[in-house]
């Protein structure tokens, strides 16, 4: 399975509990929600979807894995569409 990784050149800007990612190439500023922050943190190293889902499933054992997988897939696609992450 392909791994996701952070796109090079994206810079982080933390303000308290909030995290903004800045893409100098597009000029876009992105504010991350809690799920996206967790994903971004996790993707400090490239990881595939199965690894990501397994990590979240361990952190949220009460959540059905199918729900986690569906939510994470949406979040990954949104971050990829936003140019923040890419397939390694």
């Amino acid at each position, binding site marked *: 399975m392909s791994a996701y990784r952070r796109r090079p050149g994206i810079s982080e800007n933390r303000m308290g509990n*909030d995290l903004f990612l800045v893409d100098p190439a597009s000029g876009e500023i992105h504010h991350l929600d809690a799920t996206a922050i967790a994903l971004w943190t996790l993707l400090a190293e490239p990881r595939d979807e199965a690894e990501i889902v397994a990590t979240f499933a361990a952190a949220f054992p009460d959540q059905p894995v199918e729900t986690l997988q569906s939510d994470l897939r949406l979040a990954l696609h949104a971050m990829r569409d936003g140019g923040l992450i890419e397939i390694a």
Partner: protein
Amino acid sequence: MKAVFDSPTGPLRVDAPPATLAATAIQAPAWPRLDSAPASAPLITQQDSGDGTVRFRSTAYAVPDFTFAPGLMAGNGLVGALIGSFTVGDPGLLCLHAGAVEQDGRLTVLLGQNMAGKSTLAVALAAAGLRFWCDDRLPVDRDGLAFALALRPKLRLPLPTAAPAGFRAFVASRTGTPEADMVYLDLEAERCAGWGERLPLGRLLVLDRQDGAEMRLDGIATGEVVKALVPLAFAPHMGPLERLQRLRDLAESCPCQRLAYSDSFRAATFLATGGAA
């Protein structure tokens, strides 16, 4: 027809039909005109879109490709191009899509997306006795001083059903030129800031209007305010890192609060009578 408008960053040349210039004067009656400008001054031109609408171009920046019906809508488009053209003329200037009223010598800035109720709340605050500054566009310089453009406030018609009789009377007696389902208000000089006045920001208020919401005013973190500011800040001449830092500086320069409310008129009374304290 050529015209020259003054601006915070120098003269702006305009080549637009008389009808558009007249429409601009309805929205921005106090915007000073000049007799001449150097050839190096930014030039704004009105162009035919070929479908009965018009668009604007500027030598100062890439104007978004919006089209406007001739008349008042085109005048509104020209005002936008004027603001964009002078904003990019100062490296430290940005323009917030925001309303503002003067409160104790500083500005209470109303932050919200389109349809959030900024204009209604700003006018309701003016009706409650606070000095109107703007309902849509707020240029702010590097020192945190806001510049008054003295644009007339616009209200959408019909007024909200919750509008009390006093507010309806206030609007009715100041109703100026209509534009589709909008109307420009003619506020008395003492009720609104004059072109070129400058004031510091006093607080940033993120508007959170929801049906049935209990009125609350809570302090919020810098990041929350910056999140609200990012889509409201026009500064194409700044790189994204600089823009983000400017917005952070703004958020850290004054108190930041979130106003939860459902009724703009009750919210205006609440704010005007010290609910903000």
